[in-house]
């Protein structure tokens, strides 16, 4: 018989044995199938990520407004204003639409353009508005009628909060308007910058490695029983390579069942995905389509990996006809070769010479695999000297000293995940500093914005907001857009009384009504007595600067550096676009202040907007990666939790008899529960320590490779390590009922 036929015969025999092994055989197969199924589901989701990203980007592109400054108003054109806001931490996509003619372009997902005073909302927004949580947001739509819902084509996800509002005119929005004759831009080529690409690659590796570790663990579920069965096969004459192949065949059945389970789980998750929003990101099930090549790879790689891992693991076990000898038992693990892999990883990441993605990814993979390889040695060395302590501790440490393999394997997945996440988190926060757009809110929590018809209306808007109970440190600015007639450059034109102006521009000196203040740097553009073009609804009006202007020094760092400051009577403001912005802090003891501010603002100006401010705004594409990371990390932690649980169950079942004997001796439940906890917690603590060390090293190296300053994000580090610890605790807690059950005297029966 040739080699292939021998393999096929033995693998088939293994499959038959696993399938025909009665209840125990099936439970083992199902156990590893469940484990691998979870892994497969996660891999398939990962394989669907490209299509999800593409779909998301395509949807955004489809509804985006093309930029054109040459378009003239016509029957086919429409004016659009961006009215996005953050409501209670969720992004709300908002657009104000004012058609120029009677055949305006239609945004995707809409059947007709809403008329003035009409609003079309997304289903998620409709639900929100109908719920008590949406009360404050509802004020935004006072005096508007909701006439329909946005179809799926116009949304980035099923749970996106979005609306289109019709207006008769958007002239007051000045240069914030977009005039367009169609929606949609050509899909942006995924021109991620190198830094982002590195991040994405690293994130994928980090999320997939624990799954690989997990699949490797799942293959070994119930291994001891299988070894006894193989010993029986040796007795009737099977040679060692045959037993290895038969064992591989048994794993293969589990892997194939795992593929089926995993595909089923994936389809289920896909259907359920529409109902979930993670970090503001929701996906249509129809867009979760695994990349065909990647899906094929998963389908082939998982069974192949199952066979490979089994054959490799069997090398360390000598199955003799009458006995199973574990080579690892009592043998001291060697350190030197375990250092090779992470060492090579460090070398690849070291900031020497040029960096390439291949090099960085290789380094990351090697360093993380290095953890899996190093952990057994570290655990063995660390538990060896443990002697003292209470009984539960003694039971746990003795168990680990005798055989730490199972426990270590169980936590290595968590360790890799946490190490990777720490590195990513570090790299991410380090890089993020670069990408934060300084929004200069100076700690304000709420912003009320109105486009008042004239200056007195602006003044009453400001005083109404200021006098709302609970409002603190309100800083109000009223601006007009203004152009100097010899250039296209536009400058903000800040209008206010002397006190407001002095406060805002931080200048001192004489000021009286009718004065205009021009920063030193702008004195050429704004000469006293010159004519200015000022934006007014639908037209440009000419205004003349007063004959006397005062030059002032404005500090460099001030955001109003390039503004002109004018008292209200300096010139005629009639017909000028005004925008009043008030940023304020809120009294934390009055939780309804934001609602009161909104009410007050909308009473005066139905088009006013009230927005919650984040202190920092992360650039949107970075936010996407961050979201992906969180979604992935949650998935991986769940899978690892499940694998820990399965491993623990198996350990418990193996210790069934000693457990019931201990119970007969009157051992307290707490003693055994604690011992169970220590047994998982000791490798976990060691693993997390190693994960922190590796994660910080990896993060620093990645930052160095990206020429970023190295800083350690302590809260992020704590959050991730605690997440790993929480998984341990949770898993121990879930396995306690099984422990109690195994402690019952039924275990004493031997027949």
């Amino acid at each position: 018989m040739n080699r292939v036929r021998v393999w096929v015969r033995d693998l088939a025999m293994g499959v038959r044995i696993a399938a025909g092994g009665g209840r125990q055989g099936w439970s083992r197969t199902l156990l590893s199938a469940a484990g691998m199924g979870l892994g497969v589901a996660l891999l398939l989701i990962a394989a669907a990520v490209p299509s999800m990203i593409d779909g998301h980007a395509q949807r955004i592109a489809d509804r985006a407004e093309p930029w054109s400054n040459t378009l003239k108003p016509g029957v086919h054109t429409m004016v659009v204003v961006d009215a996005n806001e953050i409501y209670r931490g969720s992004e709300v996509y908002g657009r104000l639409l004012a058609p120029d003619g009677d055949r305006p372009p239609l945004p995707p997902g809409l059947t007709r353009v809403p008329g003035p005073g009409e609003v079309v909302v997304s289903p998620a927004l409709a639900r929100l508005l109908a719920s008590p949580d949406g009360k404050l947001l509802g004020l935004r739509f006072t005096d508007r009628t909701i006439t329909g819902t946005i179809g799926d084509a116009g949304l980035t996800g099923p749970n996106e909060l979005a609306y289109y509002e019709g207006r008769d005119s958007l002239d007051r929005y000045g240069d914030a308007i977009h005039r367009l004759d169609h929606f949609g831009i050509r899909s942006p080529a995924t021109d991620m910058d190198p830094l982002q690409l590195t991040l994405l690659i690293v994130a994928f590796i980090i999320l997939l490695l624990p799954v690989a570790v997990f699949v490797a663990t799942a293959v070994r579920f119930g291994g001891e029983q299988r070894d006894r069965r193989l010993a029986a096969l040796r007795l009737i004459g099977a040679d060692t390579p045959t037993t290895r192949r038969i064992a591989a065949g048994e794993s293969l059945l589990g892997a194939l069942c795992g593929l089926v389970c995993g595909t089923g789980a994936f389809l289920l998750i896909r259907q359920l995905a529409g109902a979930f929003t993670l970090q503001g990101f929701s996906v249509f099930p129809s867009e979760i389509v695994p990349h065909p090549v990647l899906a094929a790879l998963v389908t082939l790689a998982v069974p192949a990996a199952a066979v490979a891992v089994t054959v490799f693991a069997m090398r360390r076990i000598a199955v003799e006809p009458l006995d199973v000898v574990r080579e690892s038992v009592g043998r001291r693990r060697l350190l030197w070769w375990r250092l090779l892999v992470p060492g090579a990883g460090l070398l690849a990441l070291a900031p020497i010479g040029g960096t390439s993605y291949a090099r960085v990814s290789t380094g990351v993979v090697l360093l993380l695999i290095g953890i899996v390889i190093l952990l057994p040695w570290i655990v063995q060395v660390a538990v060896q000297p443990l002697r003292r302590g209470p009984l539960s501790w003694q039971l746990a440490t003795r168990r680990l000293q005798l055989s730490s393999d199972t426990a270590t394997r169980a936590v290595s997945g968590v360790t890799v995940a946490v190490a990777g996440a720490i590195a990513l988190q570090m790299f991410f926060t380090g890089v993020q500093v670069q990408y934060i757009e300084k929004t200069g809110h100076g700690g304000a929590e709420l912003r009320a914005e109105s486009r008042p018809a004239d200056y007195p209306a602006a003044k009453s808007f400001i005083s109404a907001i200021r006098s709302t109970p609970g409002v603190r440190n309100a800083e109000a600015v009223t601006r007009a857009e203004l152009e100097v007639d010899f250039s296209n450059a536009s400058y903000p034109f800040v209008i206010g009384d002397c006190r407001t102006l002095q406060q805002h521009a931080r200048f001192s000196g004489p000021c009286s009504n009718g004065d205009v203040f021009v920063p030193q740097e702008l004195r050429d553009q704004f000469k006293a007595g010159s004519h200015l073009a000022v934006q007014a609804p639908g037209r440009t009006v000419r205004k003349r600067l007063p004959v006397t202007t005062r030059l002032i020094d404005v500090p460099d760092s001030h955001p109003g550096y390039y503004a002109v400051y004018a008292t209200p009577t300096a010139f005629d403001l009639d017909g000028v676009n005004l925008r009043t912005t008030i940023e304020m802090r809120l009294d934390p003891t009055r939780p309804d202040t934001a609602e009161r501010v909104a009410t007050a603002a909308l009473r005066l100006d139905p088009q006013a907007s009230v927005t919650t401010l984040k202190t920092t705004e992360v650039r949107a594409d970075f936010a996407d990666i961050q979201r992906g990371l969180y979604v992935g990390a949650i998935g991986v932690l769940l899978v690892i939790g499940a694998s820990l649980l399965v491993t623990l169950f198996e350990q418990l079942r193996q210790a069934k008899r000693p457990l019931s004997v201990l119970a007969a001796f009157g051992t307290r439940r707490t003693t055994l529960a604690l011992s169970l906890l220590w047994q998982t917690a000791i490798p976990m603590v060691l693993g997390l320590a190693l994960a922190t060390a590796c994660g910080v090293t990896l993060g620093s190296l990645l930052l160095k490779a990206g020429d970023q300053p190295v800083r350690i994000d302590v809260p992020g580090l704590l959050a991730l390590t605690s997440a790993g610890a929480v998984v341990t605790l949770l898993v121990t807690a879930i396995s306690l009922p099984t422990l109690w059950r195994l402690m019952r005297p039924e275990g004493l029966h031997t027949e």
Partner: protein
Amino acid sequence: MSSAVLTAVGLRKTYGTTPALAGADFGISAGETVAVMGPSGSGKSTLLHCLAGIVLPDAGTIMYGGRKLSALSDAERSALRRSEFGFVFQFGQLVPELTCIENVALPLRLTGHSRRAAERAAMPWLERLEVADLANKRPGEISGGQGQRVAVARALATAPRVVFADEPTGALDSLNGERVMELLTDAARATKAAVVLVTHDPRVAAYADREIVVRDGHTRSMGAAA
């Protein structure tokens, strides 16, 4: 029967629909060894589990030291098993991760002794059962007979008032089994411990002072010591 330590009257216990005990009586005095015999599945082990407070009978009373065992809570019964009872089973009873001395010290540690004190107290028992040289070996490294001796040492280490032995020699050859029985009964007699010995082997039962037979969940006393 004088100074009964443990008595049981009218014990009934049903697992699912199978009656394991259907009115069993039992009594044992201090220092006495009673063999519980009977065919497989007759309810021998269930009787032992009930007497030891490991399972609660459905009906009947068990009195131990003036206390009604069935009226005690699970925690109280556990405490009783820790401090006043000792156990020897057929096999698989030693904690595989612990060394022999640690296994023997285990019940002492359960009753609150420090590690050091417990192991100091455990050593003489290993010597008495002729396995002192195995103190630092793990159960996986010793033979079945040696393991059973360690188990007997462990059962006796807390100076229990009652030792429950369920087929203590079931997994041993007759020579080893007899030696273990000799050591068990000698040590129990010396410490005035009562021994409830469940066995189906008449030659093991012959080490007891008297025997009772369990048949179909009923007990039948086979006469007191001659």
